[in-house]
């Protein structure tokens, strides 16, 4: 079977990942804001007797890459040279999207133009003459609606009869000659390295650093500079951009008919959502509503699951000996105590899916940017923060879109302080046991603390790292859209699945370990078990916080995954959480414990991602030490003050 490499390239948020999913049947992360995909993802499918490797790449506006995600795409195109490029474009915005198409042709890549979002084209009453566009650009053009599935046959046929590469001589004659000169100059030396010559020459004239570096490494820089300065083209970026846009608009004049711009629904929604007075209150209420929705929609389901586990536990306890105890106390009370919250987690992700797919995300970034700025962060740093409410590990990946390296490190370091959905489980158990009617409020207050603490730490870290945060922020606001049920389902499932997997793997493993430790040496009562030994050995450290050895041990294991805090306590509680917790904590200790769990340590998965994204162990280690000590201090402060207040 023959293998073919196909790369998906295009502007951010045009539907590359949606197309990737349609082609490969994968369920990669699709959302309505620019910069969702930050690393290259590979998928496979077979067509006739070909095996096709599809590579989904982060979105780029131009080939002049600045941030890490953009560099991933550019470097892939230069170094790996895919067999075919599917240049995915938003067909409602050809004028801007074709800019990249021209650059791809300069790279000498075999390109098929995918006009995506054709449903929107129809809605907006835009007429596009595809065959005319095909003729004028000299490449194959295919229309798609990636979210509704695609005609693989049509696309692959186009991929095979795409012309090897096209060349648009669109620059002023004098400049074209200079380009040729530079091309010839470097041909001798660079031809075998597979570096596209026209791209090199044009990008160099534009002032691109990579092109400059390639010339420099091959001792051609001086000569190339001389060629440009002869005719006064040292700074040709404007000439180049203008020629490209002129070519695009003269092409589109023959191809596209657009109705007169009018006030759209998106504009009307923006009028309200970005409103001077209403904007921020709406934003806060949306967050509150998400939270409320997740809780109230999930409660009946959670109760049902809880009932199920109680019944199961009763059966298990009927089995005599250690098997009954392992199943009843270990697995069911332990892992069950976390599984009860599966609906909560899923509904939370559902709500986040709505937020992300409607297009509200970048509006929220707009509203809150000023505030972020005060805390030395940019609006781009806001998106990883919001995503952190789902899962810190995956949120940290999205910091790749931040251009300034220091700001990116800061965003990575503060992300674990954003309370992820795993911690929600811990709060739900504790607040449920102690705060009754006010449980919801107690949890919401923890979220507020979470945001405030993360932002404060941003200031502290930017002071320590001497970050002067300078990357220019240009963020696009996509059109609003109604999320589809299917899209939401895929989003919710693919993120929630992770939680289920964790419950079946690492959480189960940790729980069984805890059960084992609390029954060893064999047959003793729990007070004399190994678990108690470990807990009691560490407990003095936590004595000032009034956390006894049960809590200490739970926190220790919670470092693996936050939910394990709950399963461990569940093993000790043997079915009745609130009764057990009330014997070891008072309400003030309980709230202090919630604060401690919020701050104390990024989970193992998050530490691994931190290491990967910063390329050094330094940052995860710093993060662990920093968060442990601040958690300790804050919990201690809260308890001391809390108890004083109560005494008065």
């Amino acid at each position: 079977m023959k293998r073919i490499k196909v790369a998906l390239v295009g502007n951010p948020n045009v539907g590359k990942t949606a197309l990737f999913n349609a082609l490969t049947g994968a369920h990669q992360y699709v959302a309505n804001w620019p910069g969702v995909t930050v690393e290259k993802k590979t998928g496979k499918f077979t067509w006739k007797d070909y095996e096709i490797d599809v590579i989904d790449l982060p979105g780029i506006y131009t080939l002049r890459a600045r941030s890490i995600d953009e560099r991933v795409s550019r470097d892939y195109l230069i170094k790996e040279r895919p067999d075919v490029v599917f240049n995915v474009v938003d067909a409602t915005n050809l004028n801007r999207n074709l800019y990249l198409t021209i650059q791809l042709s300069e790279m000498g890549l075999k390109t098929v133009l995918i006009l995506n979002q054709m449903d929107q084209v129809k809605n907006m009453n835009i007429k596009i003459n595809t065959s005319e566009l095909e003729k004028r650009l000299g490449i194959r053009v295919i229309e798609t609606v990636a979210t509704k599935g695609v005609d693989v046959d049509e696309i692959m046929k186009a991929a095979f009869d795409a012309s090897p590469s096209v060349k648009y001589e669109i620059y002023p004659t004098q400049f074209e000659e200079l380009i040729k000169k530079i091309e010839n100059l470097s041909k001798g030396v660079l031809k075998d390295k597979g570096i596209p010559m026209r791209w090199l020459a044009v990008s160099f004239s534009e002032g691109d650093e990579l092109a400059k570096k390639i010339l420099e490494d091959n001792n051609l820089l001086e000569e190339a500079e001389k060629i440009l300065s002869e005719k006064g083209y040292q700074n040709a970026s404007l000439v180049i951009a203008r020629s490209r846009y002129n070519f695009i608009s003269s092409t589109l004049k023959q191809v596209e008919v657009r109705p007169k711009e009018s006030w759209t629904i998106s504009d009307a929604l923006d009028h309200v959502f970005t409103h001077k007075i209403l904007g921020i209150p709406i934003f806060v209420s949306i967050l509150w509503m998400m939270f409320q929705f997740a809780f109230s929609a999930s409660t009946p389901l959670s109760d049902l699951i809880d009932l199920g586990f109680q019944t199961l536990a009763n059966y298990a306890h009927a089995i005599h000996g250690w098997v009954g105890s392992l199943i009843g106390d270990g697995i069911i009370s332990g892992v069950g105590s976390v599984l009860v919250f599966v609906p909560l987690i899923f509904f939370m992700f559902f709500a986040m899916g709505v937020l992300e797919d409607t297009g509200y995300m970048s509006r929220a970034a707009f509203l809150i940017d000023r505030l972020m700025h005060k805390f030395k962060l940019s609006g781009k740093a806001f998106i990883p923060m919001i995503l952190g409410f789902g899962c810190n590990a995956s949120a940290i990946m999205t910091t790749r879109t931040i251009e300034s390296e220091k700001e990116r490190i800061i965003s990575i370091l503060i992300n674990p302080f954003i309370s992820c959905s795993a911690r929600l489980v811990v709060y739900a158990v504790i607040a449920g046991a102690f705060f009754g009617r006010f449980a919801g409020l107690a949890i919401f207050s923890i979220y507020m603390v979470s945001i405030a603490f993360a932002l404060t730490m941003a200031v502290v870290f930017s002071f320590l790292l001497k970050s002067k945060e300078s990357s220019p922020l240009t963020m696009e606001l996509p059109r609003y859209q109604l999320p589809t049920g299917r899209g939401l389902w895929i989003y919710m499932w693919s993120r929630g699945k992770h939680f289920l997997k964790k419950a079946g793997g690492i959480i189960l493993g940790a729980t069984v370990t805890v059960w084992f430790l609390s029954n060893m040496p064999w047959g003793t009562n729990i007070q004399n078990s190994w678990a108690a030994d470990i807990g009691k050995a560490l407990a003095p450290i936590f004595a000032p916080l009034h956390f006894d050895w049960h809590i200490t041990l739970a926190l220790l294991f919670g470092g693996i995954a936050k939910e394990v805090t709950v399963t461990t306590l569940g093993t000790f509680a043997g079915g009745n959480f609130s009764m057990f917790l009330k014997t070891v904590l008072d309400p003030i200790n309980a709230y202090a414990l919630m604060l401690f769990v919020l701050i104390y340590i990024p989970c193992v998965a998050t530490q691994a991602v931190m290491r990967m994204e910063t390329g050094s162990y330094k940052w995860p280690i710093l993060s662990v030490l920093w968060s442990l000590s601040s958690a300790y201090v804050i919990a201690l402060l809260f308890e001391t003050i809390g108890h004083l207040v109560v005494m008065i």
Partner: protein
Amino acid sequence: MIVTLRDCPENTKCELIDSDIPDALKSRLMGLGWLPGKTIQVVRRAPMGDPTIFLVDSTKIFLREEESRMIKVKPLYPAPLAVAEKGVYKITGFSAGGHRFVERARNSGLFVGGIIEVISNPLKGKIIIATKNGEISIGRGFSEKVFVEPVRR
């Protein structure tokens, strides 16, 4: 008059002028279709005064104050009084439609179709204009909502 993009209040339309902006910002803007000669529409300023949403072609982006201060533009008339240079103008409309606003404007001698003269506009602080009622100085907030168009005499 050449002003920076930051000086332009909401609802201003202006033309982008070639200017010295850092290469990082410039190449990014060009990729988004921001070329000299293009019309930029100022759509929305954020609640806390920064950043601002701009529309070019059919793409909305937002920029912060620092960046928009580097970008030079020429306001297209009718434009807000806030960016009008010295000269004689006709008032074409108000962007805040409120009854009270129109009333207040009328009391200062400003009404749709009325002729005024801008005597000085420092782009910061008050603008001094001459109306039929004589010379008055008006605040920035107010001047951002009065749209004018130059008249030749």
